[in-house]
Each structure stands twice: as C-alpha cells, then as structure tokens.
C-alpha cells in the first residue's frame, strides 16, 4: 500500500469534516434527546409526533429527587400554601411532596462503588503491571494469560457462583462487596493495559533513581508512576466507565443498602404513571461524573511527557 505525502485538497477536507460532523450528530442525538426529555413535561415527553420545541420545566428533576402522594382537599388545606418553587411544581400536578426520594443515596452509592473500585483497581493494577514488566516472575506468560482469560466470557456468566459466594461471605448488598467485584472484573484489563504502558518506559530511569540512592519502591512511585500517568489516566477511565454503568450484577447483588443508580433509575417509572422526564433527569445527572472525570484526565491522555528525554 502506498500513502500520498501531499496535503489533501480543500474539497477532501470539507468532505472529511462533514462526514465526522454527521457521524457526531448521529451518535449525539440519543444523548441530546435524553437531556431534552429531562426538561419536558410528562405530556410533552410522550407526545406523538415527538416535540422538539417545548416549554422547559424542572418537573422531571423535582420528581426525581422527591416522593409525592396524590393530594386530597384535606391535605392541601393542612399543608397551607407552597413555600418553595419545587413544592409549587408538585402542587400544580395535584400532589404534595412527602419526602426526598432515594436517588441521592443511590447516586452516592454509585460514586463510592465506582470510584472506590477504580482506585483499588489502579493501585493493584499498577503494582502488578510493574512487577510483570520488570521482574522475573515465574510462569509470567501463563499468569498473564490466566489473568486475561477471566475476561473471555461475560462476567455475568458466573453470577450464580458469585451470588452464593457473596451470601456465604456476607458481602451481599454491601459497598465493599461491589467494590471487590468490580475490581476483580476490571483488574485483568488494567494489568494488561498498564503493563503495555510501563513496558514503554525505559528501565534506565529507575536504575538512575536506584543509583541516586532511592529504594526500588521510591523509584516506582517517584519516577515510574509520573511517567505512566497517561496510561494510568486512560486505564482509570475505562475502569470507571465499566463500574459506573454496570447493571446486571447491581440488580442481582444489591437492594436496600448498597444499590447503585443504574438499577434504581428504571424503578422511578413505576411510582406514578410513566414518568419519563424523571427517568431522563436521573440519566442526565448520572452522566455527569464520568464526563467530568474524563475531562479532568483529558490532558493526561493527550500529553506525551516522555517525549525527547531519552534518545532511542
């Protein structure tokens, strides 16, 4: 195959640009639709033909964060006039707010379990990857293959043994249990990805640090880790996205205490009719942490900090 070294023509660039923009629009439409639905009224959300221009309301968000009961005349009289904007919105629908919903709690569970397992996965993953990359580990290739082989079937295929194991260990419906589970699932990916990144770091840097009077572990975290930042950042994003979005195990293994947001969001629908705006609002808020995390780490993804320091 041959590649032309000349600059592509203006027309080619335009065409390529349009193609990319077109593709981006197609993939972004569902996302934009979810975000828009969160601000619709229930009627607008199921209108046919679908409405694109609508009067935005925060009703979906109010419904997401509150539990409400249908108000009788008696109750409205007892409650007096609404004192807050969100109570006003509930009243307009003929309901009164009976308390906060469990969404906040579920969301917090997702944060604890998602970021907890990502952090654990990074700690174990970098150390294992470093060992595989630098030391003579007996049966290294076999071990690496074994680690990878844990991902050769969908994790949910082992749901029943895990369920029984968790029940015996008392890990059912606990944060620790879910953190360990997601760490176990992600670890193979993180070890493999990180090993690749660490392999790329010339061993001379650590040797220089050893000579400079640092211990092996100091050399690892003062010299190797900063240079593996790019790899650690991208691996962490992969791990977080998996743990954050995981649904099947969360349904199976969590209920009252450690339930994460993904199994909770669909339950919003059943409380009072088809409350699509509340579901969409839950999904929108659920997207934010992963987006923020990715944006924060983006500069690490793009920066090649080892460039030029070693001549090859």
């Amino acid at each position, binding site marked *: 195959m041959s590649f032309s070294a000349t600059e592509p023509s203006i027309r080619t660039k335009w065409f390529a640009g349009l193609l990319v923009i077109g593709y981006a629009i197609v993939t972004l439409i569902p996302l934009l639709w979810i975000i828009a639905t969160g601000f619709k009224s229930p009627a607008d959300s199921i209108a046919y033909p679908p409405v694109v221009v609508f009067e935005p309301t925060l009703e979906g968000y109010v419904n997401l964060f509150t539990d409400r009961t249908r108000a009788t005349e008696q109750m409205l009289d007892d409650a007096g006039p609404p004192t807050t904007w969100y109570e006003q919105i509930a009243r307009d629908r003929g309901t009164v707010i009976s308390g906060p919903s469990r969404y906040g709690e579920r969301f917090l569970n997702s944060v604890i379990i998602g970021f907890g397992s990502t952090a654990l996965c990074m700690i174990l993953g970098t150390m294992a990857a470093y060992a595989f990359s630098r030391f003579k580990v007996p049966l290294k290739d076999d071990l690496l293959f074994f680690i990878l082989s844990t991902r050769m079937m969908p994790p949910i295929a082992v749901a029943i043994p895990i369920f029984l194991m968790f029940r015996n260990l008392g890990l059912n419906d606990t944060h620790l249990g879910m953190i360990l589970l997601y760490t176990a699932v992600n670890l193979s990916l993180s070890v493999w990805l990180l090993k690749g990144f660490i392999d790329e770091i*010339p061993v*001379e*840097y650590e*040797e*220089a*640090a*050893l*000579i*400079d*009077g*640092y*211990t*092996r572990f*100091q050399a690892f975290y003062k*010299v190797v880790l*900063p*240079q593996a930042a790019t790899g650690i950042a991208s691996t962490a994003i992969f791990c977080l996205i998996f743990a954050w979005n995981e649904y099947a195990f969360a349904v199976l293994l969590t209920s009252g205490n450690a339930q994460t947001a993904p199994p909770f969001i669909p339950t919003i629908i059943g409380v009072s009719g088809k409350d699509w705006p509340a579901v969409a609002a839950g999904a929108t808020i659920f997207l934010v942490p992963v987006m923020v995390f990715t944006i924060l780490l983006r500069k690490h993804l793009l920066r090649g*900090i*080892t*460039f*030029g*320091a*070693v*001549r*090859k």
Partner: protein
Amino acid sequence: MAQIRIENVRKDFGSFNAVKSSSFTIEDGEFFMLLGPSGCGKTTTLRMMAGLELPTSGEIYIDGQEVGQKPASQRDIAFVFQMFALYPHMNVRKNISYPLYSQGMAKADVTRKVSEVAEILGITEILDRPVGGLSGGDRQRVALGRAIVRDPKAFFMDEPLGALDAEFREHMSAELRALHDRMGATTVYVTHDQLEAMQMGDKIVVMNHGVVEQFGIPQQIYDWPATKFVAEFIGSPPMNFLEFNGTVGKGAETIELGDASFAIPRQLDGVSGALTLGVRPEHAHLNDASAYRGEVVAAEYLGTTQIVTLRTEHGRVKARIPSHVKVREGERTGLDFDARTLTLFDATSGRALRSDANQEVLNHG
C-alpha cells in the same frame, strides 16, 4: 574516592554466561576503560560494580568494602547512562538535585551545590528548562551534573558519548577527561571504541566473550598484545597476522618465513606447530632489498601516510608508510619488519609467546 577491586566475578543469565571469572583492580583516581566488542560482557561487568546486576559469584570491593550483593542505592556511586536517563518529568535543576534529596540534604545546601556544579559544567542558564528540549550535549552535561553533584566514591559511565554526533563526541571526550582530572575521581568507562579508550584511559581492560583478555596501560596493550584478539581489536588498521608452521626454539632470535629470515625479540619458550607473526602496520616497511616479497594490491591515501596492502605467501599485509613513497598496484617489492616490535602468537590458543620484549607486560596482566 576509592579503589575498586573485582575478584573472580562471574555472571550468568539463565544458562547464558555473560562474564566468566573476571579479576582486576582499578586504582584510586584512575580513568579506567572497559573495552570490547558488543556482547563481550563489559556493560554487565560495569553494572555489577554499580549494583544494577548482582554477580552470580565473586567479590566486588569499593574502597575496601565488599559490596557484591548490595543494592545500588547503598554503594554511593554515580552512573552515567548511554541514553542519559534524565528524569523527563523534572527540569534540569531537579534532575541534578535529585540524588541530594535522597540523602536528606537541606534545601539551601542543595541549591548551593547545584549552582556550583552548573558553574563547572557551564549549564547555569539552562537550570530551569525542562530536559525535553535540550540538545544532546546539554543533556550529556546534565547527566554528568547529576553524577558529580554528590561527590560519589566512583563514576561509572556506560558509553556516555555513544548517543552524540561524531563531531560533538571529540569535544565532549576532552571535556570529560578534563572534568575527571579536575575531580580526581575514580572513573570506570565502558566503550567499544578502541580509539576513545586509548585517548582517554589511564588503563584499559580488554574483554571478549566474558573473559578479560588483557589489562594494562594503553601503550602496553597496543605494543604488546597478550592475545590475537587484542592485537586485532586495537589499532586501525589492526595488527597483521602472518600464519606459518614452524619451530621456535627457546632463546631463538630469528624465525624463518619462507625463504626469508626475520629477527625477533628473544623468545623465552620453545614452541613448534602453527604460529602467527604479528606486525603492526607502521612496523612494516617496503624495502626492495629484502628477501621477503609481496605484491602490492591496493594503496589508501590518508594524508601524511598511506596504507599499502601487499599479498604475501603468508597472507595479506598492510603497511603504513609515508605518503610520498610511490607505489603501483601489481608491483612486486620486498618487505621488512622492525625486529624489536614483533610478537609471536600460538595460532591455536591465540596467546602471545613470551619474549624478552613483552614478558614484563604479560606477567603483570
């Protein structure tokens, strides 16, 4: 500063034997060259001295202390890597000060020490630059700075000029030697470049296949090689070998080569069988009166001298002669050798035979 002593050091990597039982001593303040072709075990030997590899067996003494199994961080030595290995996430100043922080030195002392070193190396104005954009020479200086900043017991350098352009190398090697003389530090320097080794070194160890072939000052090694390998590896063009079968009696002062007879240094051992006569190109002369004949095959003009290649009945001989001498290809001429510079080798073992001239060099090596 310190003396370094290597005793019967051996290194195996699995079933591969990288260094076989090496022994030598590097005196305090010496600029010491480890010379050999790639894969000869010189870098492994250096890394064992530095503690980056642990010897399979044998002892290493630095400053009288046995350190063979100690990690690098406890040996108080500095190492300059071929690829410099500057920490890419730190600027020049942090790179140079990094070894001081591991010793827990106070911040003010570190700053003073770093500016001192930067002054010596002429890199004061780049101290706050990141290492990524530096030129090869500046990186080299920063790497040296990181090495000298802590006044270590010894400097170890693994082909430190290997990554530089040829032009700049010359300049840097002079700078390095000057730096060494100024600091008076024991320096062990690995190279595969025999010219570099002879130019810079106080002493040279020549290694091949994990074995120390010879150990001594550059001129002794050049003049009186202990083995055919050393004779060939050092010198450009290398020593000429004339292969012949013959007998050399104890005390013999001549050898017969075809019809000709050559004077040689008085031999101390009697040998017969396959022998090799070693002649440096500058010790071979064209002399039409000589009984030993050769045919001119080629002449390379090198400015003040020329290298003339002759075909003789014992193989090709290269002679370095003044460039004003006219030679024609195909011409037959006589060949003479400087008697007091010749070395005889046992062709099968490759070892030099002892004579009056080289016995002193061979005995101490």
